[in-house]
């Protein structure tokens, strides 16, 4: 088992290095955005003096390198900093400031909730469809399943969202079309309100996972041990579920992880359509007003989610290999 532990630790260290590199990329890229917070907030009324004053207050007049070090220090102590907008309002005598962490936490929670609901529907659905498609490959079922999932992944998300709203909210009012959830809402109501965005996202991610499940299984069907299973007189279903699937897990897990990462980082459009208060909306709003600390924090969270999920997938694929789980 020690070799396994070493692999896991190696991957973990590699993940941290990746995160560090990504932090540099994020910082540089965000600072390359044209315009800055001072100009964006002052709009038409910007005078050189007022812009300079706001910049000085926010530390934007410092060289980029020092700002990066400051930011990195904050990140390492889990202090995401304070949003420019909040700071600015405070200067003008606004209410007490909230930190970015306080701002992001509920939004991230909402996004995670939506991702979890979607994953709970999409992953079992995709894997089951994939298994059935492999079992009944080249039949009408296989073709229809492929066509349906492919067309849903090929259509833009907002289009799928509006189609679902039309059929499930307008023509047959089953689910609400607005997903304005808030804190303290009971779970069942939250679930009901999240259903349409979750279904939209399910349609988007299912195809990929289903096709990989199907392909990974079919890829193994020519192996001698599958032939052996057939020659033992086992049912086709048992051959696939018991003999092919356990050996096809590694690629399937990887695709699932990639799609879960997408559910956390790529849901902006769906959140906007359903007015779902997730992290994607916060991110887009912050970009609009060049609220750099919030944008950077969001980017870093997205990157961390990607790295963490891929890391988990790597480790799980390794665990799915009996040669590594049970060394000689």
């Amino acid at each position: 088992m020690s070799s396994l532990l070493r692999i896991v630790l190696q991957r973990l260290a590699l993940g941290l290095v990746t995160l560090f590199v990504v932090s540099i990329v994020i910082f540089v890229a965000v600072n390359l955005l044209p315009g800055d917070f001072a100009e964006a907030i002052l709009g038409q009324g910007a005078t050189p003096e007022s812009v300079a004053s706001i910049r000085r207050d926010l530390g934007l007049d410092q060289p980029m390198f020092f700002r990066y070090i400051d930011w990195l220090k904050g990140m390492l102590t889990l202090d995401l900093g304070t949003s420019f907008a909040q700071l600015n309002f405070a200067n003008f005598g606004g209410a007490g400031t909230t930190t970015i962490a306080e701002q992001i936490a509920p939004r991230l929670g909402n996004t995670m909730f939506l991702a979890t609901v979607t994953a709970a529907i999409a992953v079992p659905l995709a894997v089951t469809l994939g298994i059935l498609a492999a079992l009944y490959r080249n039949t009408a079922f296989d073709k229809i399943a492929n066509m349906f999932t492919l067309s849903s992944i090929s259509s833009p998300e907002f289009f799928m969202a509006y189609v679902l709203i039309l059929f499930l909210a307008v023509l047959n009012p089953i689910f609400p079309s607005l997903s304005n959830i808030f804190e303290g809402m009971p779970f069942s109501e939250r679930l009901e309100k999240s259903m349409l965005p979750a279904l939209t996202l399910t349609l988007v991610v299912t195809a990929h996972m289903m096709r990989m499940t199907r392909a990974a299984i079919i890829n193994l069907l020519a192996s001698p041990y599958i032939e052996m299973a057939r020659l033992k007189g086992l049912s086709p279903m048992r051959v696939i579920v018991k003999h092919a699937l356990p050996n096809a897990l590694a690629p399937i897990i990887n695709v699932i992880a990639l799609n879960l990462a997408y559910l956390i980082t790529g849901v902006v459009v769906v959140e906007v359509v359903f007015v779902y208060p997730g992290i994607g909306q916060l991110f887009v709003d912050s970009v609009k007003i060049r609220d750099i600390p919030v944008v950077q924090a969001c980017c870093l969270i997205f990157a961390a989610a990607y790295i963490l999920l891929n890391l988990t997938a790597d480790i799980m694929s390794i665990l799915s290999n009996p040669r590594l789980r049970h060394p000689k």
Partner: protein
Amino acid sequence: MSSLLKIRGLKIDGRSDETWNPIIKGVDMDLKKGEVLGLIGESGAGKSTIGLAAMGYTRDGVRISEGTVEFDGIDLVTASAAVKRNLLGKRIAYVAQSAAASFNPAHKIIDQHTEAPVQHGVDNRANSAADGMELYRKLRLPNPDEIGFRYPHQVSGGQLQRAMTAMAMSCRPDLIIFDEPTTALDVTTQIEVLAAIREIVEEFDTAAIYITHDLAVVAQMADRIKVLLRGDEVEEADTRTMLSNPQEDYTKSLWAVRAFERPAKPAVNTGSTPVVSVNGITAAYGKTDVLHDVSFDIHAGRTVAVVGESGSGKSTTARCITGLLPPRIGDISFDGEVLPGNYKKRNKDQLRQAQMIYQMADTALNPRKTIGQIIGRPVQFYMGLTGAERRKRVNELLEQIELEPDTYFNRLPSELSGGQKQRIGIARALAAEPKFIICDEVTSALDQLVAEGILRLLGDLQDKLGLSYMFITHDLATVKAIADEVVVMKDGKVVEQGPKLDMFTPPHHAYTDLLLSSVPEMDPDWLTDLLQERGVDNIGDAAVGKM
């Protein structure tokens, strides 16, 4: 007594390029209860296809076009999938060539053993597992009560092959198809498996179809032998008649292959400098030494056969000579000059002088390059020839390996047969105009007739070009045919070396003796006699020793 399996007029088609071509052209077969029929033929003869068809099973891209396969009165050609599923595993079982590939890597051996009995409702899991351990004991597997709880990769090839035979026996079937079950094994392991199979088939009075390309093996196993050639039956007779009095020319030619032998060359002048000299090398993968103080010389125009079972260090020695694995202690010298251990530090001429031919011509040739490109590349790289000169040289090389240049120049490896591919491998090695070639099991993936052709070609090239060969093999018949000197290796050490004649005349080192006596002979009583001579227990001990 009525027959258990009755095949009549079986014709099977295989699909290639969207058309169906006949691969089995009308075969009849009868098998009585408890009888063992040997199916023999070269690759492409359709042995496995017939074996699988006897189970009513065809692989993808293959279909039974005509004929009947009647098992106990049920025609498996027309039977529904459900009817066939009910017979497979329960009354007809299969033992595949590679147990390592045919056991599912994701499940423990015992779970795979009990699967058929449980799924067919023959017995419950606990009873079937207990029976499995009983069978493991009968098959003389080490630790029979414990070995089933391992995963396939944790068990050696010979043991897995026996575990698969046990698995086939799990429902006590009436018929077992053995599809080349010992082809992938070393000779000493092969004996254990052959003995185990024969014993258990006799004990349970199971009928069997034993498929192999090895005449000596089939002579030990079968009551009757059927010879196949390109999907047609050549002849069939009981084993003793077939061996002593084959009727057809093809059968006689198969029998004759074993007689091929090059005369050994006169002893080497002791004063001459060897072409290659391996001087006391010890080499390691990671921290484990896998070679221990290996030394031998290869003289100009001679063939040194390096013999041993898998894991004995034959290929590792070759890797040290080519510089792929720098030795930890000792060195390699070429024409008396010590070579750098790492190939990256050798100059182009040093690299050119030693070439290599591989076991699997399939994987050693780039499938996307034409033959002209494959051979032309070293011609250009080592000899600096380009354009028309390069083409001319490639043509010469193709003629040397007895392939017609204009026909083959633009073909891809996939358009060649196994033997032709191996010839291309030889031409590629010759392109560098080396003095010395390492042949790593170059004939073990080939049929006997084709292998003989390759051995003759290598011999002729040696006479013509004065080449020296290091011939790695586990097949002692090949050694007999081509070697001048023999080096026997075991566990990374040289246990015996000397001229071929000395090697094949007693007294031998104990291990050489074990190797030599393990090579199956055409005599149908060979296995029985050998087992008696060694004593049955010794076989079990040999298996434990290999763990």
